[in-house]
């Protein structure tokens, strides 16, 4: 098991957002976390890597309990995070953005170099000296993913990677994610776009108002249109 989350409860101030969330990601697996706007997908991700301060529960990554560790320590164990808002360093160039993400080679996790990343995302290779702030949304999305891969993670949390992208870019994104999967990177991908999730994911969880209300393979989900219609906006 790559990642396993049990009994995760999160709060923003007095507001209780996540209720006993439990989920697992197996080695080499790509798992979807589906849910509507405001369901708690981003909060789940932010809680896993310790960006939400008020949280309880157990988060086990590669066999060790990381629940009480600070964000940087969790991430530098090889758990990459690609935020929904992308959070490119706008004043830094593409190369410099990648540099911030760079971490030592990790045994047991695929090793990414700039060259490999530029073949994964050819657009980026052509704009290495460009400031992050002057890139298009799609390019920024690729840069955030590439930036996380520079840390040689064995698991990446991808928060809505297809959001706001043109169909053509979404296709590139699907290819990139499949390449990452082939390389051996496990992923937990939050999505609202079921079609996109179907192309890349093996299994899915559905989250609704902070509670996990479905868990199964993509096939099982397709056999339950009632659940799909009740919990996902299509």
């Amino acid at each position, binding site marked *: 098991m790559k990642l396993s989350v049990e009994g995760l409860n999160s709060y923003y101030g*007095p507001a209780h957002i996540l209720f006993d969330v439990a989920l697992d990601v197996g080695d080499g697996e790509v798992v979807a976390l589906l849910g509507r706007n405001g369901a708690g997908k981003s909060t789940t991700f932010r809680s896993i890597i310790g960006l939400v301060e008020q949280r309880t529960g157990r988060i086990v990554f590669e066999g060790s309990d990381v629940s009480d560790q*600070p964000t*940087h320590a969790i991430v530098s164990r090889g758990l990459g*995070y690609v935020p929904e808002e992308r959070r490119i*360093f706008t004043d*830094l160039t593409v190369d410099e953005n990648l540099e911030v*993400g760079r971490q030592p080679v990790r045994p047991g996790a695929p090793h990414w170099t700039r060259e490999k990343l530029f073949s994964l995302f050819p657009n980026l290779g052509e704009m290495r000296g460009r400031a992050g702030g002057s890139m298009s949304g799609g390019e920024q999305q690729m840069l955030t993913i590439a930036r996380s891969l520079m*840390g040689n993670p064995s698991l990446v949390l991808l928060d809505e990677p297809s959001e706001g992208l043109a169909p053509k870019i979404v296709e590139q994104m699907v290819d990139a994610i499949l390449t990452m999967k082939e390389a051996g990177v496990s992923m937990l991908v939050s999505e609202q776009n079921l079609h996109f999730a179907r192309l890349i994911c093996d299994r899915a969880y559905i989250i609704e108002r902070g509670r996990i209300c479905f868990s199964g393979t993509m096939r099982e989900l397709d056999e339950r249109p009632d659940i799909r219609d009740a919990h996902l906006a299509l």
Partner: protein
Amino acid sequence: MAFYVVQFLTGLASAASLFLVASGLSIIFGVTRIVNFAHGAFYMLGAYVAFTLTERFSGAIGFWGGVVAAALIVAALGVLVEMVLLRRIYHAPELFQLLATFGLTLMVEDLVVLIWGPSDLLGRRAPGFKGAVDFFGQNVPSYDLFLIGLGPVVLGALWLIFQRTRWGVLVRAATQDRDMVAALGVNQKWLFTSVFALGVFLAAVGGALQIPRDAVHHAMDLRIIVDVFVVVVIGGLGSIIGAFVAAVLVSELNAFGILIFPKISIILLFLVMAAVLIVRPWGLFGKPEVTARRTPGLTVNPWRPLSSKGRLAAVTALLLAATLPLFAGNYALTVGSEIAIFVIFAASLHFMMSVGGLASFGHAAYFGLGAYGVAFLAKMAGLPMITCLLLGPALALAGAALFGFFAVQLSGVYFAMLTLAFAQIVWSIAFQWVEVTGGDNGILGVWPEKWAASPSHFYWLAIGVAALAVAVLRNIVFSPFGYALRATRDSPRRSDAIGIDGKLIQWTAFVIAGTFAGIAGALFAYLKGSVFPDSLGISLSVDALVMVLLGGVETVSGAVVGAIVYKALSIFLVSQTDLSKLILGGVIVLVVIALPKGIVGVLETIRQRRRPRPEPPLLASRIGTAE
């Protein structure tokens, strides 16, 4: 002509140290978002330690090695401070950070005197740069030429570090989004510590390099920090290039200001700063703060007007206080009057800070202006006391109207730095313009008239005015104006949208607070019978801040309690020890860390806990979700 060129070169040479210190401050601010008030103290320590080392070890290696070693030693000290103190307050409101680092400054000032003694120390001259270069019949010290060259070299080195090293890239990334840097696996703790070390190192080098030019003394810190604040306000906080350009500008203004306004050269600086702020409020090279953090952040209780029970308690307390002359001696009455005066002063700052969200670091300016106003009227115009007391504060009002206009264009740390710089400008005028203000000798013989002359009468006058002032300020808090002010504080954009002219409201609050401070100052002049530039000084401004903080920033009337406790404590301390600054500084640091809600805040929390609470702790989140 040659004279002007030499003057220009002298200015450039002074710019070097100023740039070193200011760039250090800027770099630290960029990443940690802390305006390190103690930066001047590190500069001073650099000078003192370098003095000792260069005295001990002679020769070129002794000197240059001593300078570098001193800077390294002070940087190590900075690391200690960062790890022990600052790490605890990175998430505190910025006012607390400014205060904590100011407390540190106070402690260092006393420690320096304790270690090196109170008198000025004249250091060695730099080996290899002892002579002067002849320039069309004028002498230019060769050391000045060295400094002129050093500035751009340091600028270039910093540029290389930030552009070409991984560390520099991480620092620049953290300047923009610290949390994302952590989310990429970088330990911010050490990043912050190393940034702080670099910043302190630069300040200490700046101080150490001053030894051949200037005497080393224990007021160096405040002198440089004011110039540094002016530099970063003009150049833009966080910009190294800005620090360089503004350091040159400020140093040249100082060099040439002397020629243009020999008595009050600082006016020129003020004019330029005001002009820059109007055109570019974030400085020449700065960027507008995207999310300016607000000062409040520890709300204890929703504010309500006093209940009838509360009113009764207040009146009782006042009546009790009024009985003091029945049993206390003259000394106690004088202390009592002084405390009452400081209640007014603290309440006026508290009004501006807690209600207006405007944390001024130069509130003493208006206290002092009120005092000088009275002194001018009484000594020069010979007006009766009542008239003086009524009209004297008008000078404070005028000053607050002028400076407040510029200050409220900014917010947060910029506001704090600007108010401090303004206060220092007023102080310099009082200090330099001897013909009018008597300079350091002050204005003597401002005695109250017969009806108020006895300690008991003056005491009654003081507590009467204090009670009135506090009551008026409280009423303003709960007036429509008070609500508009609070709306502007909590949510500038939204209140703008409902038609509140935020800047005008804040300016008015600034003027009200300044005027009340002036009333306190006016009484103070009569209490002491004299006025000195001290009553405009930074330490008085900070006294007021500590009183407010001690009482509790987020309460309505914490300042009253804070002023009484603090003033009584400090009068006691000064009478007991020579190390009052050391102790005071320590108290400030402790209060920031241990008692961030202040005395009244803590009392309210306790009272809240005792009372069965119908309400869930929703209030705690108000700050987080507002805006």
